[in-house]
Every structure is written in structure tokens, then in C-alpha cells.
């Protein structure tokens, strides 16, 4: 390797990428996109009909309507959401006649739901729900929980229970999550989940952005024939190494820019954050994160550069791009699902397997204490992958970059790998 020449290539890459306007804009834009996507998700989950929901509750149980009225009037979220609820009391036979009359109201949506509470509900809590759209879970669960409270109270009234007992019976379970680690036991808030999501997203974006950037730059050099001039000065290995080092530095710098504010906000007391949003990550885990990212980025840059070298233009390159996209996207989705149970076998295996561990392990380590040996395995696996992949990618790059004209088949590319250099 000719270090001076490689340095020249690296310098140009940095000038072209790290100090480019588009890099600065993208780097600043991506955290905004993450925050926006978390926001959208939260908003979609909590979304309910904007106009007031109208429901009619018909009870067969004598006197229940008053208790229902009282309970609904007390419920804060029902009041806040502007539900319009009317109550009626009639026998099952009467109701069955009436429902036919009420049908048009449901159809033209002047009523969203009719709930019938039969007498038997005091034994089996089975109600009947009539609606044009019985799948509306938000409305069903909201009304259902209030009705449940009324039924519980009714069930126990007249028995030898005081209000306190009834209040206890009405209350549903509330978990207070405690995270147990080797050092301590502490209350677990939303912080680790947000961080896990953030890591997943940043790793995904980091790999994708730098991968497509190097792909485009290789294709540009190939299609503009710059590569001929470059290769009359440097060897193809030096060129590839220089480009990958340049792109890796750019990518690491980007990750730093993204994460340094996070580190400052969460690890210092400069900003007072609610306990709910705090998390703890050791310095070793941060080091692991960046080392893991560095190995990942170099591996993927090698692969993206090789794919770029195979094709003459962006359009043709799409066919070579999707296998690489899959290698990033599948781990991305696994990492997103790791939140459900970070210790199941899928999460454990994918956090030590080649390619997937690059994204899954950082997401997992924020949620549970990962044993040290698993970190070590993941680093060794990723390094081994890099050592196997790099010479192959290098060979494809060296041969592909000088091939122009016909789009090569995968069989031909496989043939290049077998060629003696």
C-alpha cells in the first residue's frame, strides 16, 4: 500500500463527502426524522375519532343506568374526549323489538354503538355490542372498562364488603418495572426503549446512507472513466482502501454528531430529565457501539463498492443493491421487535450472527444486560465476516471497475472471484 497516495484519495473523499453541504443537511435532518417518526407512531396509536362518539347503553338490570351515569360522569378521560352517552332501561324482549327501530340510527352514524347489558351480565359479564363498525377497539375498551367497574360494584353491593374492597376489586393491575442488573436494581422507564429505537434507526440510516454514497461515487468514477486516470496513478486496492477509509471517517463523524448530544443530555446533570426518560449505558457499551459500527460500516462499504463496480449506471445497480438492502433491513426490523422480549432466542441469536448483530446487538444492550461473552462473540463474528468478505469484495471491485459495456451476469461475477489476481 502506498500511504501517500491513499492519503490523497482519503483527502478527496473527505472534501467531497464530509465537507459537502448535502452531508451537513442530511446529518441534521435525520434526528428530526427519527423524532417525527416516534411522534407519528405515538399519535397513530392514540388516535381516535375527532367528532364525539355517541353511544346508547341499554341495561336490563334495574337501577344500573343511574350508577352508569354516575361512573361515566366521574371518568376523566370520558369527559375529556367528549363522549355523548345516553342510557335506557328495558327488558331483553323490549330491547329486541327496539333494536330494529334503532338500526337506522346506527347506519347513518347518529349513534356509533348500542350496548345491551342483560341481567346475566352480573354472572358472566357478557354484554352485546351493536355497531356499524364493531371493530372500533378504542370505543369498545373505553366504554367496557367503565361498565366493568359499575358491574363489579353492583355485584359486590349488598354483600359484606366496604368501598375500599370494591375499589380494590375494580382496580386493574399496574406493573412497576424494575430493571435488575449486576450492579443494582432500578426503576425502568421509557429511556432504554427510546434509546434502543434511536440506535436501531441511526445504525440503519448510517449504513444505508454511506453505502449508497459509496455506490454512487464508484459508479460515477466508472461511468465518467475517471477510474482509468486514477488507476494510471494508484493501484485498484489503494483506491478502494482510500475510498473506504474516507467514507468510514465520514460515517463515524456523522454518528458522533448524532450521538454526542445524546451522551451529553443523558450522562450529565446539565439537563434535568424526568426519571422516566433516563437510562444507563456504560462507557464500555459506548465503545462497543462505535467499534461495532466501525466494523459494520467497513464491511458494508466494501460490499457496496463492489456492487457499484459491477454496474455502469444507477439503474442497473438496483438489481445488485437489493440483497445488500436486505442485509440491513431484516436486522433493522428484528431490532425494532427486540423491545417485546430482548432475551428470547431470536434476539439472542441475531445479536451474534454476521450482519444482523451490527444492528440488533446495540438495540438489545440498551434493554437488557448482555453478558460480556456475547459482546465478544459478536465482535469476533463481525471481524471474521469482514476478513472473509473484504478480499472477495476487493476482487470484484478490481475487475468490475474496468469492465464497461455489457451488464455482467451473476455467474460472470462469480467467475471473477475465482480468477487469479
Amino acid at each position, binding site marked *: 500500500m502506498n500511504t501517500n497516495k491513499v492519503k*490523497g484519495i482519503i483527502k478527496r473523499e473527505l472534501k467531497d463527502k464530509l465537507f459537502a453541504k448535502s452531508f451537513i443537511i442530511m446529518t441534521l435532518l435525520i434526528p428530526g426524522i427519527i423524532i417525527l417518526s416516534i411522534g407519528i407512531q405515538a399519535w397513530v396509536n392514540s388516535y381516535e375519532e375527532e367528532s364525539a362518539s355517541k353511544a346508547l347503553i341499554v341495561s336490563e338490570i334495574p337501577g344500573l343506568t343511574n350508577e352508569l351515569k354516575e361512573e361515566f360522569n366521574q371518568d376523566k378521560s370520558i369527559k375529556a374526549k367528549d363522549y355523548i352517552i345516553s342510557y335506557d332501561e328495558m327488558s331483553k324482549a323490549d330491547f329486541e323489538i327496539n333494536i330494529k327501530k334503532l338500526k337506522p340510527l346506527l347506519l347513518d352514524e347518529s349513534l356509533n354503538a348500542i350496548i345491551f347489558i342483560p341481567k346475566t351480565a352480573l354472572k358472566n359479564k357478557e354484554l352485546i355490542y351493536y355497531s356499524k363498525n364493531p371493530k372500533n377497539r378504542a370505543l369498545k375498551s373505553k366504554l367496557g372498562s367503565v361498565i366493568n367497574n359499575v358491574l363489579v360494584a353492583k355485584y359486590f353491593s349488598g354483600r359484606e364488603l366496604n368501598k375500599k374492597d370494591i375499589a380494590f376489586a375494580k382496580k386493574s393491575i399496574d406493573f412497576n418495572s424494575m430493571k435488575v442488573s449486576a450492579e443494582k436494581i432500578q426503576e425502568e422507564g421509557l429511556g432504554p426503549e427510546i434509546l434502543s429505537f434511536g440506535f436501531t434507526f441511526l445504525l440503519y440510516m448510517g449504513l444505508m446512507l454511506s453505502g449508497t454514497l459509496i455506490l454512487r461515487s464508484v459508479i460515477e468514477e466508472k461511468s465518467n*472513466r475517471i*477510474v*482509468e*486516470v486514477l488507476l*494510471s*496513478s494508484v493501484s*485498484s486496492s489503494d483506491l478502494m482502501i482510500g475510498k473506504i477509509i474516507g467514507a468510514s471517517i465520514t460515517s463515524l463523524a456523522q454518528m458522533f454528531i448524532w450521538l454526542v448530544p445524546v451522551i451529553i443530555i443523558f450522562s450529565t446533570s446539565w439537563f434535568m430529565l424526568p426519571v422516566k426518560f433516563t437510562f444507563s449505558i456504560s462507557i464500555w457499551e459506548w465503545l462497543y457501539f462505535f467499534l461495532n459500527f466501525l466494523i459494520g460500516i467497513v464491511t458494508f462499504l466494501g460490499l457496496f463498492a463492489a456492487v457499484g463496480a459491477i454496474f455502469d449506471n444507477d439503474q442497473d445497480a438496483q438489481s445488485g443493491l437489493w440483497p445488500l438492502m436486505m442485509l440491513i433491513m431484516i436486522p433493522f426490523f428484528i431490532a425494532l421487535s427486540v423491545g417485546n422480549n430482548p432475551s428470547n432466542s431470536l434476539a439472542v441469536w441475531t445479536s451474534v450472527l454476521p450482519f444482523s448483530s451490527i444492528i440488533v446487538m446495540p438495540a438489545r444492550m440498551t434493554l437488557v444486560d448482555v453478558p460480556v461473552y456475547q459482546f465478544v462473540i459478536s465482535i469476533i463474528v463481525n471481524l471474521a465476516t469482514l476478513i472473509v468478505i473484504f478480499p472477495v469484495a476487493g476482487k470484484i471491485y478490481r475487475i468490475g471497475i474496468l469492465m464497461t459495456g455489457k451488464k455482467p451476469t451473476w455467474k460472470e461475477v462469480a467467475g471473477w472471484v475465482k480468477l487469479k489476481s
Partner: protein
Amino acid sequence: MHPLRIKNLTKNFGELRAVNHISFDVPESSIFGLIGRNGAGKTTTIRMLMNIYLPDEGEIIFRGNKITPKFKDYVGYLPEERGLYKKMSVIDTLLFFAEIKGKSGSDVRRKAYEYLERFELLERASSKIQDLSKGNQQKIQFISTILHDPDFIILDEPFSGLDPINTELLKDIILEMKEKNKVIILSTHLMDYAEKLCDHIAMIDHGNLILHGNLEEIKKRFSEGKITVIHEGDISFINQLPYVQKVADFGNRTEIKVNDSHHTQDLLKTLVERNVIINKFSANETSLHEIFVELAENNGSEQLKGEF
């Protein structure tokens, strides 16, 4: 001793033999023309000369030594197609290409500005390449080829895209470099340029060297017995003459090949006797273009090799 010697160079791509046992020498202080059609094997030969491809057989000797990767620092290569980064500035482009040749610092910068001035591009030094016209981009490409003061220069179609004034300027600089004892290889399919500039040529077709040597000698050899007549009236009777080998009739201009150069006089005499009005009669003259067409047609059946 010749500064550049190419010995038995061969390159295969799978089943295809792109270059087949090519040997030629490039003499000192000369412009050497590498001539051939597209796909003849010129680019592969050039890539081997620049150490981009390793030959399967044969070797390249530059000033007595077999070429090594270090050789790249002494080569300046002007590709046929413009190979520049569109978004880079002119001066950054020049300094970058010099740097990867191992030359950097204030000397190179000063020289870069000198060349820009000579090519009337000084005020465009900080413009982006994409904002320059094609001709100006070609000039930048040329400056980047010679800025590091290479000993061995390969120019692939250097004049394409240049206006007549800049073509002259480029020609002057090429001749200047020739005087400085640089080895210059001019690769082209335009025979006119090759004929005007080159002292020696090598002609490649289908991966084979079909001709090489001193251009004057080659022309002399191929022009023997070749006659061009510009005339009025029909001269088809010459087909019957025993000493006429070949006739190519272009209407008023006819190209004739006779068996031996002393038959030239016989032919002229016959034409005068038959009252043909002759506007021009030139003997023992041929162009590189004609030689190329003739050889390319015959390639495969016969291989001709000249000597220095």
C-alpha cells in the same frame, strides 16, 4: 537503446485473447502512434503499459528496467473520454491528480497556475469542472496529464473536442515534450493526426500487431508502385494492361497499383498516348489511412512486419 521496449505482450480475458504476442520498441525523442480500430486491443495494451493490467505473458522494459507499480508515477495518461470529477474545482482537480502521482506542494501549485494561464483558463481556477465547456474540460484533463512532469505520456485521442486554435496549442506542447526527451504514445484511430505527428507507429488489429516501424519507411514501402491519377474521361482500358495489379476507380480520381515502380513511366506514357486529359499524376505516394485499410482487410491471411 530504446527507452521503452514491449516484448511478447499477451493478455487473455477468459477465452478471448485481447492482445496476442505483441512486441515493439519505442525510440527516444519520438512520438509513437498506436493505431487501430475500436476493440482492436489498443486500450488493453495501454492498460498493460500503465501497469493497470498485468500481462499474461511478456514484459515491458522502461529505460532498462522491468516496470513496477512505482512506474505509475512517471506516466501521464490522457484518456479518450473525459475522466474528471464534475463537482470538483479546476485547481483542486489538478492538485489532486498531481498528489496521487506523488507530487504536491507549492511547486506543483505554481506550475498548475502557469499551465492554466497558458491555456487561458486562469480565471476559471476555482470554477467547478461541470461549469466548463467540453473543450475546456479537455484542456484541464490534458494539464492534469502532464502537471507532474511525467517521462512517459500516453495520449488517447488528445484532439477530440478541441477547436483549431487549441488543437495547435496542444500540438505545440506535445512537440515541446518530444524535445524534452519524453516518450510519447499517441493512440488514435484518426490516421491524419497520426500521420502528421508520429515518427513511428504500431498498428494493431484483432489483438495482433500487423505493422510497426518508422512511419517514413513504412510509407515508402507501401507507396511503391502506387499511382493516383486525377483525370477527365474514361480510363477503364488500364485494367487490361499487363503490369497493372489493382485499380480503384472513384470517378475522376483513380488509384492504381503497378507491379513495379518502373512501370509508372509506362502507365503515364500509355495515358498520354490514349489522349486522356490528366489533371494530376502522383506516383509513389500513399497515406497511412490507405495503408491501414489495406492491412486491416488482409489481416488474418498475412501479417506484415516492418523494421526500424
